[in-house]
């Protein structure tokens, strides 16, 4: 009986060991979260963008050099003199991956329907009054007032009308899932999507650009981030798109793996409650926080470099104002004092001069006001919590007390967005949170502190008519040279008044195997962008390719998979057999012993 069992197991083992030959050039990405449906109307995760950015074009693409406007579905455009009409001339003779022609009908559909209903894509066409298509190769967009986003920031993928247009809007916004292959115009299109398992992308036969060098891109789902990292070190995958900060250094030191730290349009800030009585009659806060001198002193007392070093273990970048350096064209690093270099002595002097004298426990006060503030932070973010504790430590040095309150994100949302009688009534002094902007247009971040966003996305409730005026001006300015100085002025004003003290700029952290990828040129923006312009452009796929001959290491490493697989299997079999054998022996022996009577 036992012999039969072992023979059977042996036969199964033979059947189970698959031999695999890989001739296809495959690049394997690993991630711990994957998209839910890949529908541009439904999904709202970062992961989707990584696939969409390769699958689709925008009307105007982002250039990999500086993220500025580059030809997309539109190869050129004219802005009218009153800046309220933009005429796009579409590329001629282009086809979708399924052979259908790309026409102005697709653009109109995308701008109208996706721009009106997509979870992540509403808002871009807020100012658009009409989209007309005089012919198959022209699209005319008219706006209420000049809106520079129409050329530099219309982050709306152009999707095929002949596929998506067949569904009702209700279906698109509730249950419709895209069919595979996902028809698109980028270098690769998704051909298989098994949720929680794998996404496959294959070259688009009708792609109008240079033929991409890989035969297949795979996005493989793992159970956790550290499983992904282990898979990279073992060679099971070739690329990690989101390396966790604690592992970044370790991976960088691993042989055969290269890590990349690139700037992104996101930051972490310390926000102050600046709501005026007019806007928020029922807000609750310590009035001392609205004293500009106090905020500026705090800014001098907070060593942002050190926060970056400890909180993010140097995987992020020190913050310099509300516009991260990702915005290459518009980035204006604040100069001199406006950058608030670390200077606690200066901070103490400022507070002394303004009459804030240290009182009980070293906390400064003036009259009946004390420099003691609450500092809310989300429990979901270890980094933010760390930032809060560091800020508290540093502020204590100059006599400012922060009482750190770790709360859930729901609670923090409540505190910052609650309303009384329809008017905002925020209940906080300060908090730490983050924001992310769009790739090119600085308005997405600059608008966070405009008066019009009070009651919307403004959580500092800052209101400055001068700022608002300049903001509107640059938002409608299509000429970059004219726009830059206005943006610079806006950053200066925000640094002067400090509704936000931007602590760190978030990074894109990537890692890849050097034996799996060649042709790497960091871009988006050059020279310190990331490896494949994640979420923003498909341009790098023209040069990214398999390793050159001679570097042929384990390209897709299915061999190590097999070894791992059959090794483990062998152990299972042996372990099971051992257990069975032991059980049989024990039972046999016990039978002998039990024949003797036992006392109870």
């Amino acid at each position, binding site marked *: 009986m036992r012999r039969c069992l072992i023979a059977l197991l042996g036969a199964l083992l033979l059947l189970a060991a698959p031999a695999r030959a890989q001739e296809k050039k495959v690049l394997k990405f690993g991630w711990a979260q994957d998209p839910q449906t890949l529908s541009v109307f439904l999904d709202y995760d970062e992961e989707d963008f990584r696939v969409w950015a390769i699958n689709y074009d925008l009307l105007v693409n982002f250039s990999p050099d500086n993220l500025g406007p580059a030809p997309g579905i539109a190869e050129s455009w004219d802005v009218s003199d009153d800046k309220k009409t933009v005429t796009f001339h579409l590329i001629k003779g282009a086809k979708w991956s399924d052979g259908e022609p790309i026409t102005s009908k697709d653009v109109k559909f995308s701008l109208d329907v996706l721009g009106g209903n997509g979870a992540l894509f509403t808002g871009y066409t807020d100012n658009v009054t009409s989209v007309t298509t005089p012919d198959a190769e022209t699209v005319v967009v008219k706006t209420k007032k000049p809106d520079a986003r129409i050329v530099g920031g219309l982050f709306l993928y152009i999707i095929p009308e002949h596929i998506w247009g067949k569904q009702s809007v209700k279906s698109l916004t509730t249950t419709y899932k895209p069919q595979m292959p996902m028809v698109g115009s980028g270098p690769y299109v998704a051909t298989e999507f098994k949720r929680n398992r794998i996404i496959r992308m294959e070259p688009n036969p009708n792609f109008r650009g240079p033929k991409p060098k890989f035969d297949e891109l795979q996005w493989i789902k793992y159970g*956790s*981030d*550290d*499983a992904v*990292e*282990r898979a990279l070190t073992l060679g099971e995958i070739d690329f990690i798109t989101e390396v*966790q900060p*604690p*592992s970044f250094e370790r991976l960088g030191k691993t042989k055969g793996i290269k890590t990349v730290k690139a700037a992104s349009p996101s930051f972490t800030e310390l926000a102050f409650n600046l709501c005026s009585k007019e806007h928020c009659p029922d807000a609750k806060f310590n009035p001392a926080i609205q004293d500009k001198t106090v905020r500026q002193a705090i800014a001098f007392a907070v060593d942002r470099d050190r926060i970056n*070093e*400890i*909180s993010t*273990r140097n995987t992020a970048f020190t913050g310099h104002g509300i516009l991260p350096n990702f915005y290459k064209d518009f980035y204006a690093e604040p100069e001199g004092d406006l950058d608030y270099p670390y200077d606690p002595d200066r901070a103490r002097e400022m507070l002394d001069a303004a009459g804030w004298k240290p009182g009980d426990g070293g906390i400064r006060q003036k009259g009946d006001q004390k420099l003691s503030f609450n500092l809310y932070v989300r*429990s979901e973010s*270890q980094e933010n919590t*760390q930032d809060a*504790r560091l800020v508290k430590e540093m502020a204590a040095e100059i006599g400012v007390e922060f009482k750190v*309150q*770790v*709360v*859930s994100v*729901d*609670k923090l949302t409540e505190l910052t967005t609650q309303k009384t009688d329809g008017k905002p009534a925020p209940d906080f002094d300060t908090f730490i949170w983050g924001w992310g902007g769009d790739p090119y247009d600085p308005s997405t971040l600059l608008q966070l502190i405009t008066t019009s966003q009070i009651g919307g996305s403004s959580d500092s409730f800052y209101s400055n008519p001068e700022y608002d005026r300049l903001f509107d001006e640059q938002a409608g300015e299509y000429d970059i040279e004219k726009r830059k100085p206005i943006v610079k002025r806006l950053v200066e004003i925000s640094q002067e008044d400090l509704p936000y003290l931007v602590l760190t700029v978030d990074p894109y952290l990537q890692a890849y195997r050097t034996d799996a990828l060649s042709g790497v040129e960091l871009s988006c923006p050059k020279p310190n962008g990331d490896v494949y312009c994640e979420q923003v452009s498909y341009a790098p796929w023209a040069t990214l390719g398999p390793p050159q001959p001679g570097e042929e290491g384990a390209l897709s490493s299915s061999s190590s998979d097999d070894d791992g697989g059959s090794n483990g299997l062998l152990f299972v079999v042996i372990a099971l057999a051992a257990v069975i054998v032991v059980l049989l022996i024990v039972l046999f022996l016990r039978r002998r012993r039990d024949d003797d009577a036992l006392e109870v």
Partner: protein
Amino acid sequence: MNRVLESKRGRFSLAVIALFVFIAIFGSLLAPYDPYASSTDVLAPPSRDHLLGTTEVGSDVLSQLLVGARVSIVVGFAAAVISAVLGAAVGLIGGYFGGLTDKTFDAFENWFLVIPQLPLMVVLARLLNPSLGVLILVIGLTSWAGTGRIVRSQVLTLKERAFVERARALGASDWHIIRRHILPNALPLIFANTVLIVAVAILAEAGLSFLGLGDPSNISWGTMIENGFSAGAPSAGAWWYLIPPGLCITVLVFAIGLLGYVWEQHINPRLQEVGE
């Protein structure tokens, strides 16, 4: 209590529990570092500086372990007290007065006993945003049924005893009888059961914290395991981060369980009638 102290197992379990209570009270004084202080020494194995190594943000594991005892013990005991009071009240009132009250209580008890405990606690904790108080409330409110049932059956037996009849004959009010005659006799049973509920509550708090429903501003053993797991400690082989908190939970619950067992065996021989 003397009999418990006489037994070796009893002494051992009481000593362990006392040790943990001591740590719970003095943990923050004993901790060598601030448990929340981070450093650049991330996921480092045990060393002279850090006897139990460091966490994924460089905090000292030993300090977190010592301070985390407080949450586990406070929640465990508080929830058990609530559960005991609630269960005893329901058991006493239902058992004594009988009738519709008893039938209603019985139905509730049945329901709470059938419904899977952790899923129920999870749902309640998620709906009320997690905090120390919520944890205590949620665990207390879902664990009373066992006590309730036991107390009720004890009350039913006591109700028929001679001294109760005599008291009634003398004109004593119902509440007087409950307070003076029934409750004291039911107390040993309630205590014995509560000891076990403490164990259950500590495990429940750890489980809820592990699932992310613990108090966000306090470290507990459960949150330590959760943080370790989310930070990839298993793959990094960071056993010093994962094993100690779980071990503390195990040892404490083991000691409490052992105490309960000893108590039952030695203190209350009558309990053995009720069946194992």
